[in-house]
C-alpha cells in the first residue's frame, strides 16, 4: 500500500465497512429471495465500489476476489444463473475475509503477509461458480526473487536505459504461438527494457515429449520505465504477465521520464480517437478535443518543430483523408527516433529562424514540369465534369468542386515553385566591378561603377538571359561612352567617369538602367551612318526624330556594316542585345544627350513564361502543342476511322470527333500507318483529333516570337530552342485548323 495520508486510509476503511455491510444485507436478502433483482443489484454495486476503492491503492488480493464475485453477480443479474446456497456461502466468506483485511489496514496501514495466498484460495473457490472462463490471474504470489539477482549477462545497455525500477514476469500461454503471439518480441519491445532472461517454467520436457509448438518458457525482464507505462504495455497480456516494483533499484522516475511516459500515453490515446470510424459524424467535439490535447501535449514538451507541422494539419479537417494525414503525423510523434532527432536538432542549430536548403536548379524545373503536367491533367477533370452534366447534375457539381480544388492547389504550387526560382540580381551584378576594373586598365579609362538594387529579384531564367547583354552594354559604355580622362577634364567634367547600374521593379517588370556620363551619341551622325549603309533612305533620315534615330543602333545592319570606330562601336553587338532581350519578352530603349551621357533601359518580365509543350513528330520535324490544349493522346486503329461527307471522323468517349492530319495541314508528305497516333486537342469550338506520326515527351520551353520570314506564317505562334539545340515550332492550332 502506498504512502497515504491518514485521512485517505480512514476514508477507505469507512467506505469499505459501509460497502461490506451493504453487501451482507443484500446477500441475506438474496438468501430469502433468490431472484430479487434489487438485491442482486445492490450486492453487485457494493462489491464494485469496494473493488474500485481497493484498486485505487493497488490492493490486489481484494481486487482479485471482488472481481470474480462481481462477474458472477453480473451473470445472475442478467438471469443466466441463480443464486445458490453454496455460492452465497463463498461470497459470505469473501466478505468476512475482506473485512479482516480492512481491519488490518486500519491498524497497520497494510495487508497481512498471507493476504496474497489467502486471496488465491478464495479466488479458486469463487471461480467454480463463474460462467466465464476467468483465467487465473498472474498469481498474487508470483516469484520475483530473480529480480534482485539478475545475472549480468542478461543486462542490456543500462547506461542508455536508466535504472531498472520495474520487474516483469511473463509466463506465456502454452498455446500462445497459435494465437499469434511472439513472446520474445513482446518482451523485447517492453518500454525501458534493461535486462531480459528466459528459462523453462518447469523442468524442461524430455526431447521425446517435446512439442515444438508449445511454449514452455517464461520470461523475466527489468524495465526502467514508470510502472504505469509498463502496466499499460502489458495490459493485453494481463493474465500472463505479473509486474512488481523492483526492490533495490526502485526509484522515483525523473521528471523527464515521467513526461515522456505521459506524452506517449496521451498521444497514443489521441491516435485511438483519430481512428474512430465515425469521428467526423455529427458534432466534431471529439475531434476538436483531441486536437486540443495534441496541441497542449506538444506545447508542454516544447516540440516547436512538430507544433508548426501540426498547426498546418489541424487546419480545416473536413475529409477522412485529412484525418488520415493527421493520423500519420500523430503516429510519427510516437516514433522514438523522430522524437530524438527533434530533441537533438535545436542543440545543433541554436537560433536559426529560417532554414535554407540548396536545391539543384534542375530539380526545381522538374517539379515545375510536373506541376504543369498536373495542370494539363486537371483539364481532363473539368471536361469530365462537363460531360457528367448529362448523367447526373449532382455528380457533375461535385466533380466541378473537386476540379476547382485541384486547380487552386495546382496554381498555389506553381506560384510557390516559381518563387523558388526567384534570384536576386546581385548574382550577376557581383561580376561587374571586376570587369570594370579590368577594362579600365585595358582601355585606360577611369571609371567609378555604382550598383543599386542588387537585392531586386527576378526569375532565374530572366537573370540568366540578362547576364550576357548586361556585360556587353557595360563594355560598350566603357569603350565608347566614357571619354579618356584628359578629354573629360578639358570638357570641364570629372576626370573619373561614372557608370551607374540600377535595378528595380516597376509595374510588375524588372527594370535595369545602365547610365554613363560619357560623350553621348550624336543622333545626326547615326542618321548619316544609317543612310550610308542603306538601312534607311536619305528622306527617311531627314524626317526621323533624334530619339528614333538613336534606336537605329540596335539595327542589325548598323554595326555589322561598320569597321570599329569610336562612334560606330556603340552599335557593335547591340542588335544581339536587343534580340536577346526581346526574346525574353522584354524591351530595350536608349536615351542619349551629346556631351552629357547615355542611358540604356531594359524592361523585362519578372518571370519568363516557361510553357509546357507536348511534342509531336511529323516526318522528321518536331512540333509543339501547348499542354493546355491537349486533352489526351491515344492510338486509334486505321479501320475505326469513318468518313462523313469529306471529313474523316472517329469516336472518342461516345462523341464523334473530326480527325485532321497534321501532315496534310502543313503540307508534309505522309507516312502510312495501321495505327494512328492521335492527339485530342481542345479548340474554341470543341475537341478535335489531330493525327501525327508520333508523340514525344512533353517539354518545358521558353517560347520566343518568330522572327524573319516565319513571322508571316500564322500556322506557328512561336519557336523554342530544345535542349539538344534543335528548334521546336509551336503550332497555332486555332489558326491551323481554321476552315477545317
Amino acid at each position, binding site marked *: 500500500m502506498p504512502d497515504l495520508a491518514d485521512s485517505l486510509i480512514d476514508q477507505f476503511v469507512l467506505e469499505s465497512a459501509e460497502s461490506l455491510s451493504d453487501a451482507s444485507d443484500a446477500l441475506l436478502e438474496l438468501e430469502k429471495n433468490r431472484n430479487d433483482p434489487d438485491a442482486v443489484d445492490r450486492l453487485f454495486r457494493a462489491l464494485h465500489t469496494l473493488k474500485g476503492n481497493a484498486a485505487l491503492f493497488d490492493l490486489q488480493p481484494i481486487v482479485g476476489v471482488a472481481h470474480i464475485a462481481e462477474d458472477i453477480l453480473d451473470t445472475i443479474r442478467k438471469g443466466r444463473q441463480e443464486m445458490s446456497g453454496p455460492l452465497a456461502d463463498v461470497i459470505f466468506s469473501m466478505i468476512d475475509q475482506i473485512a479482516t483485511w480492512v481491519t488490518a489496514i486500519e491498524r497497520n496501514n497494510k495487508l497481512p503477509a498471507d493476504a496474497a495466498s489467502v486471496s488465491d484460495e478464495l479466488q479458486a473457490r469463487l471461480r467454480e461458480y463463474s460462467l466465464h472462463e476467468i483465467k487465473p490471474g498472474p498469481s498474487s504470489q508470483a516469484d520475483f526473487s530473480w529480480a534482485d539477482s539478475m545475472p549480468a549477462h542478461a543486462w542490456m545497455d543500462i547506461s542508455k536505459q536508466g535504472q531498472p525500477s520495474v520487474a516483469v514476469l511473463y509466463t506465456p500461454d502454452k498455446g500462445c504461438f497459435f494465437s499469434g503471439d511472439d513472446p520474445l518480441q513482446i518482451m523485447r519491445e517492453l518500454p525501458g527494457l534493461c535486462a531480459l532472461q528466459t528459462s523453462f517454467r518447469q523442468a524442461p520436457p524430455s526431447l521425446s515429449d517435446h512439442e515444438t509448438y508449445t511454449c514452455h518458457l517464461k520470461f523475466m525482464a527489468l524495465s526502467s520505465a514508470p510502472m504505469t507505462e509498463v502496466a499499460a504495455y502489458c495490459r493485453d497480456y494481463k493474465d500472463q504477465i505479473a509486474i512488481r516494483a523492483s526492490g533495490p533499484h526502485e526509484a522515483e522516475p525523473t521528471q523527464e521520464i515521467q513526461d515522456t511516459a505521459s506524452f506517449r500515453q496521451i498521444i497514443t490515446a489521441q491516435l485511438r480517437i483519430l481512428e474512430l470510424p465515425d469521428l467526423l459524424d455529427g458534432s466534431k467535439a471529439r475531434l476538436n478535443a483531441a486536437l486540443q*490535447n495534441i496541441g497542449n*501535449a506538444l506545447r508542454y514538451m516544447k516540440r516547436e518543430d512538430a507544433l508548426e507541422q501540426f498547426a498546418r494539419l489541424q487546419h480545416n479537417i473536413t475529409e477522412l483523408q485529412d484525418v488520415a494525414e493527421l493520423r500519420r503525423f500523430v503516429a510519427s510523434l510516437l516514433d522514438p527516433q523522430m522524437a530524438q532527432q527533434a530533441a537533438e536538432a535545436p542543440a545543433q542549430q541554436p537560433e536559426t529562424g529560417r532554414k535554407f536548403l540548396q536545391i539543384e536548379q534542375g530539380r526545381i524545373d522538374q517539379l515545375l514540369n510536373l506541376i504543369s503536367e498536373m495542370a494539363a491533367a486537371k483539364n481532363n477533370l473539368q471536361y469530365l465534369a462537363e460531360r457528367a452534366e448529362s448523367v447526373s447534375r449532382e455528380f457533375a457539381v461535385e466533380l466541378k468542386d473537386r476540379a476547382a480544388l485541384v486547380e487552386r492547389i495546382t496554381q498555389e504550387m506553381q506560384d510557390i515553385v516559381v518563387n523558388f526560382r526567384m534570384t536576386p540580381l546581385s548574382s550577376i551584378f557581383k561580376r561587374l566591378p571586376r570587369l570594370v576594373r579590368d577594362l579600365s586598365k585595358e582601355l585606360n579609362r577611369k571609371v567609378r561603377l555604382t550598383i543599386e538594387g542588387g537585392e531586386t529579384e527576378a526569375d532565374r531564367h530572366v537573370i540568366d538571359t540578362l547576364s550576357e547583354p548586361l556585360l556587353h552594354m557595360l563594355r560598350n559604355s566603357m569603350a565608347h561612352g566614357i571619354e579618356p580622362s584628359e578629354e573629360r577634364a578639358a570638357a570641364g567634367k570629372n576626370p573619373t567617369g561614372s557608370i551607374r547600374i540600377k535595378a528595380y521593379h516597376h509595374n510588375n517588370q524588372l527594370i535595369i538602367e545602365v547610365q554613363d556620363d560619357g560623350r553621348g551619341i550624336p543622333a545626326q551622325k547615326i542618321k548619316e551612318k544609317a543612310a550610308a549603309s542603306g538601312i534607311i533612305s536619305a528622306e527617311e533620315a531627314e524626317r526621323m526624330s533624334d530619339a528614333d534615330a538613336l534606336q537605329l543602333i540596335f539595327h542589325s545592319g548598323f554595326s555589322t556594316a561598320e569597321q570599329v570606330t569610336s562612334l560606330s562601336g556603340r552599335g557593335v553587338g547591340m542588335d544581339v542585345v536587343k534580340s536577346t532581350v526581346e526574346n525574353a519578352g522584354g524591351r530595350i530603349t536608349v536615351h542619349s544627350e551629346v556631351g552629357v551621357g547615355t542611358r540604356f533601359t531594359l524592361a523585362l518580365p519578372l518571370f519568363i513564361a516557361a510553357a509546357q509543350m507536348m511534342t509531336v513528330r511529323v516526318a522528321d520535324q518536331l512540333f509543339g502543342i501547348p499542354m493546355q490544349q491537349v486533352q489526351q493522346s491515344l492510338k486509334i486503329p486505321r479501320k475505326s476511322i469513318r468518313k462523313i461527307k469529306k471529313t474523316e471522323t472517329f469516336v472518342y468517349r461516345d462523341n464523334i470527333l473530326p480527325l485532321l492530319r497534321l501532315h496534310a495541314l502543313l503540307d508534309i508528305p505522309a507516312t502510312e500507318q495501321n495505327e494512328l497516333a492521335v492527339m485530342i486537342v481542345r479548340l474554341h469550338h470543341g475537341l478535335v483529333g489531330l493525327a501525327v506520326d508520333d508523340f514525344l515527351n512533353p517539354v518545358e520551353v521558353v517560347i520566343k516570337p518568330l522572327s524573319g520570314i516565319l513571322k508571316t506564317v500564322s500556322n506557328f505562334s512561336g519557336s523554342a530552342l530544345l535542349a539538344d539545340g534543335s528548334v521546336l515550332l509551336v503550332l497555332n492550332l486555332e489558326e491551323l485548323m481554321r476552315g477545317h
Partner: protein
Amino acid sequence: MNKSILVVDDSHLVRMYYRQILEPEGYEIFEAANGSEGIEKAQQQEFGLFLVDINMPMMDGLTFLERIRDISTAPAIVISTESSAENEQRAYAAGASLFIVKPVEAANLVGNIHMLMGA
C-alpha cells in the same frame, strides 16, 4: 487557463484521493457523485478537465461523456478498474481523451493532467 477539474465518481474515497493529489498542484476540484450530477454542474460552470469513472449509478460515465461533448471539448480522463481493449474503445467513442486503469499513480496522473491542460 481554467484550472478547475470536475471529478465524477460515485466513490467518495476516490474523489477525496484526487482532491488530495491535485489540490497541491494548484487545481480547483469540484465533485459529482454520478453522471447526471456531473452534467448539471458542467452546465453551470466551465471546467478545464473532467475525471470520470465508468460504472456509476443514475448515469454512467459513458453517457456522461456523450452528453458533455455537447457542451465542452475539455479533456476527459476516464479512470476505470476494468482494463479491457473493449472498454477503452467504448470510452474513446463516447468522447474520452485518455483511459487510465487503476491503480492510479499520483505522479503519472498529475503529469498527464499538466500535459492535457497544456500547463
